[in-house]
């Protein structure tokens, strides 16, 4: 078994776990989770019980319910709402993981209906058998369109899915796991899917049509047979290089530094002996010392937004999150390409400003008015209020010190009576903004 974290499991550790395995704590949730201890805490995430959606119901800018299939951007809001309100954060986080792993974009699929259907598939199979998930993804309509599955026929084979299946989904490129011949033979095995076109709805009636399937003998990874699409997926999961690919990739979603070779070996063993089950591997990663003792991670934009809303107990009450997430570089349902988002490149000068704007938009409904608010003329107290406002996140000493220094200096500028009255509210607003967009809250 991979090593298990043996250090103190207090609020900071519980908070990190909630961010890595979900979308951050609601106020007080990290303290509560810490009381369960490491094993109890991880178990509560991997075995969460029936789903409940808690908190205010989502609506658009006009107060209407969301229309994820029909209204532009509402698909994203629909999912973001689940991230904010779910009682099964890990299930939702795994859905985001699989959305990135099997990155499919509405840019190519052009159907909210099919994208959400695929999204539900990730939710259903997210912690179950990877073999089942892969089989389902292989015949998923959005994927069949995205990677040309229904264009792949025995007369005109298309290598698009066959190649990505091995390169991005199961084995990895440049590892000696497969050849260009395997790509061509996989394409042949995957032939047979088709769909019809309906002018009103778009692509419909996805089905397997044996007449379009190439039923000849194929040679894949040195094995011969009249392979079909099911064999394609199965052969990849059984490939000798698949377990190492799988555990390394899965690990990278939770821990930013690669696993040691011993840990990798142990995770592979766990994965193989569980019959390619996802849950035990995720559990082992969530209990691994590297998650608690290693460096922080940059929160993906969707996680950052959902987490702010959770901390503020705010529901989806504006469509602005759609364009703000897009500015921040993560438009849900639109990964940049089939390789998914680049987790090393979330932050540049434009996306940092987008995150600043996200923080502004998140705290805006609670802005303090200078003529109403009565606030203490004390930097520490002002900062402590701002921390409470944002759910009392654990801060580094440096950030805490700089925020306090800002508040002290700004209070020092109040050299007139009206300033002494008004500045504390302005400072409190600024502290919320600085804290919500600080490096500490961009990472977890």
């Amino acid at each position, binding site marked *: 078994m991979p090593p298990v974290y043996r250090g103190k499991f207090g609020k900071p550790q519980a908070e990190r776990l909630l961010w890595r395995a979900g979308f951050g704590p609601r106020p007080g949730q990290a303290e509560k989770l810490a009381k369960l201890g490491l094993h109890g805490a991880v178990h509560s995430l991997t075995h969460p019980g029936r789903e409940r959606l808690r908190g205010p119901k989502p609506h658009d800018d006009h107060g209407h319910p969301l229309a994820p299939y029909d209204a532009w*951007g509402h698909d994203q809001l629909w999912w973001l709402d689940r991230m904010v309100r779910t009682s099964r954060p890990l299930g939702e986080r795994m859905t985001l993981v699989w959305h990135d792993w099997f990155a499919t974009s509405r840019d190519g699929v052009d159907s909210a209906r099919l994208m959400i259907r695929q999204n539900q598939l990730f939710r259903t199979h997210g912690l179950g058998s990877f073999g089942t998930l892969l089989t389902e993804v292989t015949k998923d309509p959005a994927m069949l369109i995205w990677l040309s599955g229904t264009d792949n026929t025995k007369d005109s084979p298309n290598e698009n899915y066959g190649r990505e299946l091995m390169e991005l989904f199961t084995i990895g490129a440049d590892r000696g796991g497969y050849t260009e011949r395997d790509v061509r033979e996989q394409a042949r095995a995957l032939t047979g899917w088709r769909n019809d076109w309906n002018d009103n709805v778009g692509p419909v009636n996805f089905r397997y049509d044996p007449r379009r399937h190439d039923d000849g003998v194929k040679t894949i990874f040195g094995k011969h047979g009249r392979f079909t699409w099911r064999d394609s997926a199965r052969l990849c999961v059984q490939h000798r290089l698949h377990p190492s690919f799988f555990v390394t990739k899965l690990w990278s979603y939770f821990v930013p530094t690669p696993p040691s070779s011993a840990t990798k070996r142990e995770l592979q063993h766990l994965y193989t002996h569980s019959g390619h089950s996802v849950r035990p591997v995720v559990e082992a990663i969530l209990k691994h010392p590297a998650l608690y003792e290693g460096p922080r991670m940059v929160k993906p934009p969707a996680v950052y937004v959902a987490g702010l809303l959770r901390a503020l107990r705010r529901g989806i009450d504006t469509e602005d999150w759609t364009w703000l997430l897009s*500015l921040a570089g993560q438009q849900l349902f639109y990964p940049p390409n089939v390789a998914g988002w680049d987790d090393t490149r979330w932050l540049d000068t434009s996306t940092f400003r987008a995150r600043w704007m996200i923080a502004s938009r998140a705290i805006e409904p609670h802005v303090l008015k200078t003529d109403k608010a009565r606030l203490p003329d004390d930097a520490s107290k002002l900062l402590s209020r701002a921390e409470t406002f944002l759910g009392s996140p654990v801060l580094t000493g440096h950030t805490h010190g700089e925020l306090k220094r*800002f508040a002290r200096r700004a209070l020092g500028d109040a050299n007139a009576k009206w300033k002494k009255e008004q500045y504390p509210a302005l400072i409190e607003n600024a502290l919320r903004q600085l804290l919500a967009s600080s490096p500490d809250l961009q990472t977890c």
Partner: protein
Amino acid sequence: MSRCHHCDEFSRASLVRRTAAEAGRGLPAIEPGMPLPAGTGLDRRAFVARSAGLVLSIYGAGKLKLFEEGIARAAGGPAQPVLVSVFLPGGTDALSVLYPGLDGAYRKLRPKLALNPGDGTQFSEDPRLFWHPSLQPFATLHGEGKVSVLPAVGYTHPDQSHFTSRHFWEVGATEARLASGWMGRYLDHTGTKDNPLQGLSLDYQLQPSLASTKVPVASLAAPDDYSFWAPGVWGDVEDRMLEALEPLGARRSDPFLNQAANATAQSDRLRRQLAPFVGTGYGTPVPYPDVDDSFPKQLAGLAAMLAANLPLRCVALTAPGEYDTHSDQPQALADGLDVTARSLLAFQRDLEARGLADRVLTLVWSEFGRRAEENGSDGTDHGAAGTAFVIGTRARGEMVGEFPGVANLDDDGNLRATSDFRGVYCSLLEQWLGEDAAAVIPGASSFQRPVLVK
């Protein structure tokens, strides 16, 4: 393969980008209801930054020093050549941009869309061709020897997916997995660690061609737009809040906390560099088209930034208009080309008026051209070779590669390329930016370098 639903999506995606842009502009620079400066102790001051020749009008006395520092630092280095990339999104129809108006075969392929010889000006380098009427500004600049025309630029085995073909152009290679942009890699070789403005995406997101791996680059929608507004914060407190960004961006030992701190610090540096432009903007010596689209404003801002001697090297922006003209092509194409060409002419005149024209070269490109034969809905489907232009007083002004004609189309019925975009990049790198293309463009040695610069 072209699929219609793909392209509906293309136009909707650009629509939503525009919506995002509007929404982004909608955020106020200062809090609504904020008291007027007079009477609150706030100080509205105007001053002239002499080094930049800009009239600045700003709120708050505390910032003055930062402006001056930012400008002084920026103005310190020697003037460098600047490359501007303008992308026409959607695949611009080469057979309309420069059309063979006298060719019977063209008229047969385009019974409804063919333009007449009298519609546009004859192209002096190839009398078979005529400029699209909306491109008269380009014809004018070409007449002055300031435009090199590439009538059929592309690559072998053309890909007809917007997504893939644009990616190839952005990364400077026909490699699907290459993740850095061609200008980004150039900056990785020659840029510095502390100047995000060296690679500037005038957009809400980083233009992929500028994606670097080692040095910082910046993206902003407009130079007068890069501000950090916070709800319920103004005056002295706002100044103090912005001052706090620098120490919050200080180096941290945790590598990823440090990455976030770094982004904070770079954004703060960019904010200071651009502070002269925020709020009141900048003046322009020539008129730009007065249209809703932000393109002319972005170009005007770019000229002003160059005039302020801000340290820009590579700039990328997207042209206005919708070029994925599967239907109703005549109007859509004319509108898009019109604003684009008039704005670029104004930009050129602006640079000339400011004495900067010898420092700037502009490449105008699209991800592919369109099918030679029109479709049934007054439009054209995806094609292969397209047109590109290199504009500037230092542009050689001579055609690169000949017009291939419509008699010898490829198997898909598309124009064949007579120049390769990777060769164009090699030339721009070597002849304009003074960098060995081998360090930037994969397989650079295999591409012919057209002479693009005089």
